[in-house]
């Protein structure tokens, strides 16, 4: 890894304190997000807040299994997000397919298609585990180790090739307005 300049170190340290997560429930792990957001666990005390649009978001949460139809949208969304961007994979489904290991429509490992910075084990992860993951991600950002977005740029061909192998085509068709 390259040595960071002083300005980059300062920027990383500031970045880690204000993370906006994209409000996109891709799977069932999103059920534990309302308790995490609201009074009991309150993730806002760590500086993490939900954000509606991908263009202003920093973290993307892949909350659980992804089927091929959602993965197309996830790739679209991920590529729309501005650098630096981080991905957290929720639950065993994103790690190795989990309980859907033999399903015909869900993918088995997420880091083949988009780079993942932090994984949370479990099905489904508890709010405490989610907060722990946010803390771990902040730590990684501060140290400059959360470089998934750089890896995506460097290995873009490899990621694209994997995406096309599993999806056939990444393009999202406009089905209604043909």
């Amino acid at each position, binding site marked *: 890894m390259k040595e960071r300049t002083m300005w980059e170190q300062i920027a990383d340290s500031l970045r880690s304190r204000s993370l906006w997560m994209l409000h996109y429930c891709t799977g069932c792990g999103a059920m534990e997000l309302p308790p995490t957001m609201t009074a009991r666990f309150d993730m806002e005390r760590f500086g993490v807040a939900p954000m509606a649009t991908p263009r202003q978001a920093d973290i993307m949460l892949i909350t659980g299994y992804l089927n*091929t*139809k959602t993965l197309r949208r996830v790739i679209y969304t991920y590529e729309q997000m501005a650098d630096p961007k981080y991905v957290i994979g929720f639950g065993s489904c994103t790690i*190795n397919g989990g309980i859907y*290991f033999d399903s*015909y429509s869900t993918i*088995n*490992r997420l880091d083949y298609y988009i780079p993942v910075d932090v994984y949370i084990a479990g099905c489904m992860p508890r709010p405490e585990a989610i907060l722990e993951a946010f803390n771990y991600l902040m730590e990684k950002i501060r140290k400059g180790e959360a470089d998934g977005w750089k890896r995506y740029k460097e290995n873009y061909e490899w990621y694209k090739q994997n995406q096309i192998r*599993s999806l056939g085509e990444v393009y999202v068709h406009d089905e209604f307005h043909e």
Partner: protein
Amino acid sequence: MTNSMSKAVEVLKSFNPFVEEIDDREIKISLSNDKVISALDVLKSIGFSHLSLITCVDWIDDNQFELVYILFNWEDGGKILVSTRIDRSNPKFITVKELWPVARFYEREIHEFFGIEFEGNDDMRPLFLELWDEKPPMRKDFDPSKYSKEKFPDRKYEKDVIKEAKIFRGEING
């Protein structure tokens, strides 16, 4: 059997049905496939007006699909499973969307997962799957595990846990 169910059996006598009792509030009526639509029409008019589900079972050994229409009577809680069998090699049936408009979506789903055509239901675009390139997935001869292995790469673990467990149980030598 509830009153409405015995009435239904009575009314359907002329269709020569095969009636099985599953529960005291649930029966299954098997009919030949040319009589199903008129039987459903009759059942709807005598109180079984709620269509719970249309579903399909793939009896691959008999080379047949079984279509099951589950009807519910809100007045006394009777359930009737109207079932019919159609040929598996050229699966075709008639739509019931005139009786229950929501059936359009159930039929679309069955078309997508079993490949059955419903005459009269022209909207047969895929509903759940996108860019599907194999045979309809709910058919018994489709192997999801093989499809998943080919398309979606697995995570390779350095440790083979299953092998270790087998060694632990003494089934193979390590």
